[in-house]
């Protein structure tokens, strides 16, 4: 966590970096770090997701949105701008994935896993104007890819 702390500290005194990493603080104090990241649901609008059997129709819609709004930065097999996504549905809870899609700025400020990922990849994940229902469809597509 040392690296992360350094970045945030640096951000507070350097406006350019502040703009990059922390511009939605909006005057609030730096939040307390979450205590545990195991099984984390992340921070955002999604508190509970019930997964059923894989829904092909949803996965297909999710694929289309993924290709428009996510694929510029994410591949499955290799790191590009952001991390490789293979196995993401096994590493993270469904809620965490959806919150990361829907609320990436606050996640990289407050969620310990997202903070570590930012420290590793150094590019703020973008919010791509994705609706909650679309995030659910993208999640379904990610599940499908992980079952391959």
């Amino acid at each position, binding site marked *: 966590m040392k690296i992360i702390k350094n970045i945030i500290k640096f951000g507070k005194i350097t406006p*350019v*970096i502040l703009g*990059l*990493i922390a*511009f939605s603080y*909006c*005057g609030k104090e730096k939040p307390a770090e979450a205590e545990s990241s195991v099984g984390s649901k992340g921070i955002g609008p999604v508190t509970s997701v019930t997964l059923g059997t894989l829904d092909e129709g949803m996965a297909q819609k999710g694929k289309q949105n993924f*290709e*428009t*709004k996510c*694929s*510029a*930065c994410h591949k499955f097999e290799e790191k590009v*701008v952001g991390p490789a996504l293979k196995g993401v549905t096994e590493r993270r809870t469904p809620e965490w994935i959806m919150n990361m899609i829907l609320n990436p700025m606050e996640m990289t400020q407050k969620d310990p896993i997202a903070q570590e990922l930012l420290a590793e990849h*150094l*590019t*703020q994940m*973008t*919010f*791509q*104007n*994705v609706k909650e229902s679309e995030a659910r469809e993208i999640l379904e597509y990610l599940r499908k890819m992980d079952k391959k």
Partner: protein
Amino acid sequence: MILIGLGYGCKGGAATAALASDAAKRVYVAPGEKDEVYAFLSGGFSGQMSVYGIPSTRLFKIIPVFSVFPENGYGYDEETKNMLRTTHGYIPWDDSHHIEASMTDGKQDGRWLFLNANNTPRLARIDLKSFETKEIIEIPNSAGNHASPFATENTEYLMAATRFSVPIPQASVPIENFSKGDFKGTVTMVKVDPKSGRLSLELQILVPGFDYDLSHCGKGKSHDWCFFTSYNSEQAYKMIEVGASKNDKDYILAFNWVRAKQCLDQGKASNFGGEYYRNYLPENQPAISEKLSGVKMLQPKDCPGVMYYMPTPKSPHGTDVDPTGEYIVGGGKLATVIPVHSFSKLMDVKDKPEHRSGMIMDIPILKYESTLAGEVKKPCLGPLHTEFDGKGYAYTSCFVSSEVVKWELGTWEVQQHLPAYYSVGHLSIVGGSSKDPYGKYLIALNKITKDRYLPVGMELPQSAQLYDISGGKAELLSDFPTVGEPHYSQMIPAKLLMDKAAKIYPLEENKHPYAIKNEKDARVVREGNTVRVYMTQIRSHFKPDTIEVKSGDTVFFHVTNLEQDFDIPHGFAVSGAPEMPNLLIMPGQTRTFKWKAPKPGIYPFYCTDFCSALHQEMQQYIRVLP
């Protein structure tokens, strides 16, 4: 007569300003806090419009309107260059004077702003969601579009009257024929579509060959009318500064636009020539530029009751209608009084022969006293333009004596003299030209700043001054240098605009013919000697990222910014591109950079707008083959 702050050679301007001790507090907006009001200042000879926050007077943005703009490539790129197309060709900037805010029921509605180009007659519409210029229409049969764009109460029409009279249609006649009546002016009614804001020319009215200067339209009971000032009723054509100042009174032209529309509908207007362009920028598509031809022209003689002249001393500039719609205040820039006409009296006397003193081109001239409500006696030197606070007071700018005069409607008594630094032109009160002024702030838009600021060479900054008019006595709060000439302004409460401001162009709504919506569609397509690069941008890379073209190819980079995140534009610039500056591309937007591939070599391109920690790496190469 109190002469305060004479513009020329005045010393110690700041020291002479009687500042309230807490003025700094009243303009201080703490970091992260927001201003209370948007001030939109026209850029005068810069052709732009600038956006300031009030009371902080911080500059937020420059909106290019009739000017090319290096910051974002407006007027250069393939999408916007047609916005500046006219019947005279491509005109890269103009002289912009008056901003008008759209209104519903006489109140600011926060939808659009309108701005005129004086030199090559045009009107523009600026959208207040995107703060971008969306439409420019040329005004034919006009030589100098000064008295515009003043809106009727529901923005049914914008008025545009010609500053310089000329032969209409244009003809090469001896200039001395001006005084023989060969020169004419026009008043143009530009229709505004209530839903889309689209502009169209509905009607022109041929009027006597004077210089039409400013206008304001009525409100409430005077809804059907607009009022235009004119000078040079002498029709002087040489030594005009002397020749046009001989008559004791010139005129305010009272124009019944509802009656004009009636006459048009009754077939009383005739087909008339005149070519003009209408340039429209649909959302996220290239500008559509149409060349149109012909207007309907109405002669006042064919439409009795459409116009009346109200004599007004002396070379009047402003003609300002108070919030009730009753008073029409003239600003006789060489007059010793501020004359105020009464709309009710105008209605009583306009068709009674005993109240007339003559006719010009079948337009009745009414007697001065017949429509006069009152005069503010000896207010100042050079009264120009008046705004209203909605609490029964009027504020008039005085160019020669460099002051703002506060006076009371009805009693016509001067209440206060406020020094201005220096040579104030227009004034602006928040909502002050509407039916419902917000009445807290006034700015004076000044022409000269000798000794006010650190000198920066011969061209000193022009400036504006902010006053608090909420209390009994108006108080100077601050002054600030401005971009270009702050000619006129509309101030709008922030709450009317800030929540409606657009954040992104939604990708799914992007209808640009060369847009691509995901990286896998990025490609290079050759069509003969033309190469189209379908390119995407997202933090922090381009796709395609290595490109090969041939020397002499015309290359179109159609760049789509795939970001859907607020406040993340990307830039695009190619090394050594003589016809293009930098482009800024908003999230979800597609814009096109045209480049003639030069001699063989390797040419970098890169993102010019700081976008992320890896912004510096957002760079790639084009190889130009022999």
